[in-house]
């Protein structure tokens, strides 16, 4: 791919509007993890609204161990070449140079992801400094608001990636939406103390208390493996879903990908979710969360 002059970040409201704007366009859709151009094509043909380019899917990272980094440039480039839908890619938490590289390459969204091995144990990337939008994982409202404070234009649950077990994504989605509901019940004079307790930026705490929602789209990720899992997350308030290992670690990726897209659109229509759930072949093998040693939980990365 030829080098391109890089446009400067657009300061202020317009810049953030454009970042959130793309997330708005992805709503109601499924973003699929892919590791090759062939998989990206299968994802697009199945109706994915975007793909996430990475080197190994989370379940392989979990199995094989080692340091997980940004995907190889060649792989990302090939994926960008074969699909017309937006292409996202992951950087390690705090790795601003991996982010610089992906922005220069022209990916459409960057996921500062706990699935990769963190590069900075104290700081996340300062995302306001980029023109490309970022998505970050969160397990609760204060984590979400810290990431938004740094410039994230989309929040997703962390879930527990690579397990095919949706329980952690459900926990995080319920926690975030429950936290939001609780904030809306507080009185004005209680918000500063609450911001202090949460360790979250006051202005954002106040905004959530007033509007009853996150200031950016709220998506689900981590452990989604079936059409019913995707519909469940939508029902719990997710505005779109990410599916990682769940598709290309299943018996029939193309069929399953299509079924998950269908169930996400029609999450509130049981007949459609039923139809989407038929004849899918084996799902990926799941992993019980309690069997993962605590030090190996991906969701504990980031803060």
């Amino acid at each position: 791919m030829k080098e391109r002059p890089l446009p400067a970040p657009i300061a202020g409201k317009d810049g953030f509007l454009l970042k959130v704007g793309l997330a708005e366009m992805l709503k109601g859709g499924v973003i699929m993890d892919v590791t090759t151009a062939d998989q990206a094509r299968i994802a697009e043909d199945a109706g994915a609204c975007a793909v996430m380019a990475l080197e190994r899917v989370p379940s392989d990272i979990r199995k094989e161990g080692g340091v997980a980094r940004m995907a190889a440039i060649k792989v990302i480039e090939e994926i960008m070449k074969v699909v017309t839908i937006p292409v996202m890619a992951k950087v390690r938490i705090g790795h601003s140079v991996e982010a610089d590289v992906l922005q220069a390459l022209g990916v459409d969204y960057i996921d500062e992801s706990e699935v990769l091995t963190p590069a900075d144990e104290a700081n996340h990337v300062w995302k306001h400094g980029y023109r490309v939008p970022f998505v970050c994982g969160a397990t609760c409202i204060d984590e979400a608001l810290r990431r938004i404070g740094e410039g994230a234009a989309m929040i997703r649950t962390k879930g527990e990636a690579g397990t095919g077990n949706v329980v952690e994504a459900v926990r995080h989605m319920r926690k975030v939406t429950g936290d939001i509901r609780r904030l809306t019940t507080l009185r004005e004079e209680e918000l500063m103390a609450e911001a202090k307790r949460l360790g979250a930026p006051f202005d954002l705490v106040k905004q959530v208390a007033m509007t009853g929602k996150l200031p950016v789209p709220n998506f689900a990720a981590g452990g989604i493996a079936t059409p019913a899992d995707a519909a469940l997350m939508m029902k719990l308030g997710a505005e779109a879903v990410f599916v990682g290992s769940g598709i290309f670690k299943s018996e029939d990726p193309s069929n399953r990908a299509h079924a998950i897209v269908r169930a996400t659109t029609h999450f509130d229509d049981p007949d459609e979710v039923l139809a989407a759930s038929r004849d899918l072949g084996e799902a990926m093998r799941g992993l019980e969360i309690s069997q993962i040693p605590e030090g190996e939980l991906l969701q504990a990365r980031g803060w």
Partner: protein
Amino acid sequence: MASKSAKSLRANYCKHGGGSLKIGVLAVQGSYALHVKSLLACDVEPVLVKRSKHLEGISGIILPGGESTTFHIVMSEDDLLVSLKTAIQKGLPTWGTCAGAIMLGHGEGIPERWNLIGIEVARNAFGRQVDSFVALLEISKFDSLFDGVFIRAPRLKVVAPTVTIMSTLSGEPVMASERNILVTTFHPELTEDLRVHQLFLKKFCNWNLNE
């Protein structure tokens, strides 16, 4: 002459004597929730369209921003693809924003286009997300500028003389209409400004504010 036939076409769809005006928003994927919010702010009744049965009783439809390939694939599972296209052909007032415009126009590649408006629409023609931008637009009959939010926007090329260009950016059309169809390559639903929604409701759906 074109406007006359457009009027009679619309008459078929605009029988909303009394009661609130129902406007569909294609809701298979994309920015449909924002269009719903804008329609509610205009005081009309939004109807989410996910299946062909949801087309009943609507006086117009908005095809939102999103991914046109996803729209096409999800709609193909149901008879929605065929019934929506037929309804638009029969005169259902329709506004396509970005991905919606792609479906309605002509063009090569995926997804398959409907050729319902005389415009060629090239996808992602301004580049990738880092090339997305905001530009102030002059829109005909608006008394002040409009914030045009362009996200991985398509480019329009008018190929039929019956198409009316309503706004341009650096000489290229970004808003145009023909008969019952309006297209914009920008996203009014991302702003608080309701003027394009109101224009669609008034000029295309025969909506009367004082009704």
